[in-house]
């Protein structure tokens, strides 16, 4: 820990200064400025040439300079820190710098961090009181800066989001967050925020004691300056009271119970795959109640252990993937995209109802057509149920539900379809019916409307056959449940126009979804990769692996649920149908194991019938032992180790992904990772399927596949693309 001797700090920090480009330093000088209003100093944050304020090292140095200037200016009685950005206070540290620190190795990172920690400690120790005036994102480093202030005032606007999301990037708060937050609001509440990385609104922050006052955004500057002047007149630092203790914490020894519960919960949820929250917990446990100085050191050391770890790198990689989607338009062609105001959905089943609800939730008018009114009522009831659960969770008001439901108009005719900017078809998966429906749509819609199909397994090109202008037909494949699953596969049929692609891509983003463009081929990306995975699960069951063993192994691997649970979730009948389509398209390597055909029964179709591979009772599930009774199963052989079980399932996915790439179905390698993470929840800490494959090494995967090919059947035969990579010693990303 550095002594807070001005000279030492100046020297230490100047060692940084030399490493930063002069123009960067100059830009920081313009971005962060100090002004005086009577006895009140005001630091204004307004990052040059950027929408967001970020805490780069250069900006941290600039802040330190200003803090020193404030300290030296004895005429000042208070300091207010405020942002000029419309919806950001400080978005956090500069992530590229976290990456850089990671590449520098642990010790250097820790050292650098400790120096920068001193900037906020300097702020905290200023002789005059300080106030953070927060509107918009106040995350990570921004939160930590405001924690070092004496007072915090926040707006009640929805864009104000306060939190410490570091664990989502595989690290922990490193500039005092693990120290100052528990001191301010106690253990229980701060663990909740730090371990989950979630963010909260101004009013919730007020309730937690994280901010002192909430004001409307229009009044923030006025109220902050009034308060700043008051503070300046008194010129007294705030005496920090001990944080408000939670209920359990108050019991003698209660804090150990809190730590214990938190740890158990984390392990259960993460299966030990995510080290960052555990580390944060460890740091807080070790330092809570101790001195700030040693606490900060422990924090910095822990940070340096995590930064640059594979988990952190992968999570940061996903963050960037997400950012890249924001800039992507789905096509390189320059096309004008009309925003969707009116939409129509064909079919009021589970998918249709879910899609209509999603549209309505985002303020889009929807016409929902089905053949019979009871079916329409069912679709509306699906939408209502989703909204109502938001009302129950207090995420929505009743009147908002009524407004949203009014956006969905049911119809058995095509009334209103002529006004739709986009139609999404979600009728039964039957090519002839879909073709007929599209022929009807061709007549009732405006020629400019995009006609999308939510098919999961049929060819978009075939579905478009009877449409005059086939360029407006496109796939928009949502995943079930629509409101929760973030992925949308945007399918480019043979004649689909760039305009249709761009419209659906943009629309999906406006719905809060992650779109991935895929060319029209059976199973697209997600189902095609999941097909062999789920099929292999069936083979493994026949090879004597138990249901719970297998699901446990894949959960441990990092999947949100095991393959058997996933089969139940998807529906055994649906899985069977998709499997047949894939077999028809890709032949021998996708030949279904003799399993689903045997066990499927009309009231044994998975979760929807409460009976599948598992039995479902309320929230509990148990293995449905009856399902395996009539089936001939081998005894699990000794060489079928847990490791082999996982490899058989995951390597088949890698192999299939390689085929997809060689067929040029996606625009870039990372699209597959995006699709698998957002469509199946594929272990984010592994960075996605192909990042995972690269980390294992393609040559190793190919050699294992060759062995499996010999031992278990030709479905394991590595595809040419994979072999090529192995020969050239390349990875998917480095090819």
């Amino acid at each position: 820990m550095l002594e807070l001797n001005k000279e030492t700090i100046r020297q230490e920090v100047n060692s940084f200064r030399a490493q930063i480009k002069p123009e960067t330093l100059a830009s920081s000088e313009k971005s962060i400025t100090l002004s005086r209003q009577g006895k009140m100093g005001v630091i204004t944050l307004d990052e040059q040439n950027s929408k967001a304020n970020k805490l780069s090292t250069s900006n941290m140095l600039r802040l330190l300079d200003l803090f020193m200037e404030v300290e030296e200016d004895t005429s000042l009685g208070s300091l207010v820190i405020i942002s000029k950005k419309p919806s950001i206070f400080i978005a956090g540290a500069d992530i590229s710098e976290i990456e850089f620190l990671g590449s520098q190795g642990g010790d250097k990172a820790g050292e650098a961090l400790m120096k920068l920690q001193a900037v906020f400690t300097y702020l905290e120790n200023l002789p005059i009181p300080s106030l953070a005036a927060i509107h918009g994102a106040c995350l990570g480093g921004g939160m930590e800066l405001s924690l070092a202030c004496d007072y915090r005032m926040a707006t009640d606007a929805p864009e104000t989001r306060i939190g410490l999301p570091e664990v989502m990037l595989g690290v922990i708060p490193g500039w005092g967050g693990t120290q100052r937050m528990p001191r301010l609001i106690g253990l229980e509440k701060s663990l909740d925020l730090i371990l989950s990385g979630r963010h909260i609104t101004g009013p919730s922050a007020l309730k937690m004691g994280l901010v002192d006052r909430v004001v409307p955004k229009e009044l923030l500057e006025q109220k902050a300056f009034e308060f700043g002047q008051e503070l300046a007149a008194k010129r007294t630092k705030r005496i920090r009271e001990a944080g408000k203790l939670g209920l359990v914490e108050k019991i003698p020894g209660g804090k150990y119970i809190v730590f214990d519960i938190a740890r158990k919960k984390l392990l259960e949820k993460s299966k030990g795959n995510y080290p960052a929250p555990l580390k944060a917990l460890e740091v807080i446990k070790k330092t809570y109640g101790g001195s700030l100085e040693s606490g900060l050191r422990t924090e910095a050391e822990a940070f340096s252990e995590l930064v640059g770890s594979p988990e952190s790198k992968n999570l940061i990689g996903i963050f960037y993937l997400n950012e890249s989607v924001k800039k992507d338009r789905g096509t390189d062609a320059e096309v004008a995209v009309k925003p969707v105001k009116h939409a129509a959905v064909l079919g009021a089943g589970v998918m249709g109802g879910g899609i209509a609800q999603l549209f309505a939730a985002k303020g889009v008018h929807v016409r929902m057509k089905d053949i019979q009114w009871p079916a329409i009522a069912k679709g509306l009831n699906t939408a209502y149920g989703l909204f109502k659960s938001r009302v129950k969770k207090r995420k929505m008001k009743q009147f908002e539900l009524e407004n949203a439901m009014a956006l969905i108009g049911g119809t058995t005719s095509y009334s209103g379809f002529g006004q739709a900017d986009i139609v999404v078809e979600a009728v039964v998966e039957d090519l002839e019916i879909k073709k007929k429906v599209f022929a009807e749509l061709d007549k009732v819609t405006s020629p400019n409307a995009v006609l999308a199909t939510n098919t999961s397994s049929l060819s978009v090109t075939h579905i478009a056959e009877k449409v005059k202008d086939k360029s407006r037909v496109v796939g928009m494949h949502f995943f079930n449940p629509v409101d929760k699953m973030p992925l949308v596969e945007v399918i480019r049929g043979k004649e689909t126009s760039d305009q249709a692609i761009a419209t659906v891509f943009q629309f999906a983003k406006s719905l809060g979804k992650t779109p991935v463009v895929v060319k029209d081929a059976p199973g697209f990306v997600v189902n095609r990769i999941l097909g062999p995975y789920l099929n292999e699960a069936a083979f493994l069951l026949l090879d004597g692996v138990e249901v719970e063993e297998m699901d446990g192994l894949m959960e441990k691997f990092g999947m949100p649920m095991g393959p058997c649970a996933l089969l139940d979730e998807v529906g055994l009948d649906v899985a069977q149908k998709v499997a047949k389509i894939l077999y028809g398209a890709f032949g021998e390597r996708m030949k279904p194991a003799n399993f689903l055909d045997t066990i499927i029964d009309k009231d044994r179709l998975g979760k929807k019938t409460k009976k599948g591979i598992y039995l479902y009772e309320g929230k509990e599930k148990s293995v449905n032992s009856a399902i395996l009774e009539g089936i001939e199963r081998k005894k699990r052989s000794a060489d079928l180790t847990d490791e082999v079980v996982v490899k058989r399932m995951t390597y088949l996915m890698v192999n299939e992904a390689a085929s997809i790439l060689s067929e040029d179905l996606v625009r870039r390698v990372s699209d597959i990772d995006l699709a698998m993470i957002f469509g199946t929840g594929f272990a984010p800490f592994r960075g996605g399927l192909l990042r995972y494959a690269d980390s294992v090494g393609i040559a190793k995967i190919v050699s294992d596949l060759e062995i499996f090919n010999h031992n278990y059947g030709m479905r394991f035969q590595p595809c040419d693309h994979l072999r090529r990579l192995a020969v050239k010693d390349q990875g998917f990303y480095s090819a």
Partner: protein
Amino acid sequence: MKVWQAKEQKSKVAIVGGTRTPFAKAGTDLKKTSAVHLGVTVAREVLAQAEIGDDSVDEVVFGNAGTPANAANIARVIALRAGLSQATPAYTVHRNCASAMEAVAQGCLKIGAGLGDTMLVGGTESMSNMPLLFGEELTELFATLNFAKSPTKKLQKISGFRPQWLKPIVAIMEGLTDPISGLNMGQTGELLARDFQISRETQDKFALRSHQRAVAAQKEGRFKDEIFPVVTEPDFAKAVEQDVGPRDGQSLEALAKLNPFFDKRNGTITPGNACPITDGAVALLMMSEAKAKSEGREILGTISAYVFTGCDPSRMGMGPIYSTSEVLKATGLALKDFDLVELNEAFSAQVIANQMAFASKKYCMEKLGWDKEIGELKDELLNVNGGAVALGHPVGATGGRLVLTCLLEMKRRNLRRGLATLCIGGGQGAAFVLERAE
């Protein structure tokens, strides 16, 4: 008030679209569905069918009699929820049983005068959701409690409470009672039955015919173009697709078993030969004829004249003859010039009384200043698909149904001229002349 006539207007006023919800006796299928939702359902559908842009409606007017406490200007709530832009003005009109008729009249006035060329009008009513009100004492207690400063003071006030204060006032009963005559609507009907010596049996026969005609219309699918289903609140789990009221197999015997409701000893009006209190909504799209033609829209009909008139509140059921008389005088038309008549069935006795009065030289001379009887209102042209006795009478919406039903039946039969008329609680009548091009 003078009769409004299209020929004096800048522009003819056309009706280019319309639909209604199924009507359901209060307390049945639509009992938990709000008047707002009923109104939104039909408004949204009429706009969708017409493929009207969000900002292409000049104004929205809805009739509503029992104002919901949470939607005081219900027309504006309906306009926005139905998807119209925020720039669309909207207001609610109240003329008791003719509230939706008044909305149509507003359309005539404004489009006729050239103030706008597209208006969404209609009416909505949830009589199931009329509130119970606190009595004066309890209201007073709540008010003083609000002002009582200390808990002791509050307790003092509360101790003054008497259990009988809890007896609620039923808003719907208050609403259906005319404060001028002190009579509720059924009692005014009883007066007409006495005036015109209309027997219980005659009334029951009329009621039976209303059911038979409505059932036949249902069976033959004649309501298909008229009714748009409602998916019910609160949970949107059920679709109501048909009127609930019409009874297949209704019989004179069954009707005869019912007891008089309003005058238990000497009365003749029973729940069987009166209209039930009902939930439902109607919406109509009105346009200047010029605009409708330029857009190539189908014109269901135009309104060539209308009038509202006043009469004796204790005999409010005679409203139709008063208003029709004025319209005929002003337009020079005779009753026989009408191919079809919708006359609202508040009570069987009241419709029969009007029919008798139209044919009575004495009544027409004494009350209406004619020198002979107005003419015969033929059974076979009157309420051909049944009326409110079978279908129900959602007060704020009925006027719109009369216009819509009449126009759609004129289209079906390819007729030229229709009359939609009704009696209005408090002693008024409305009559609208509807025309259809060949």
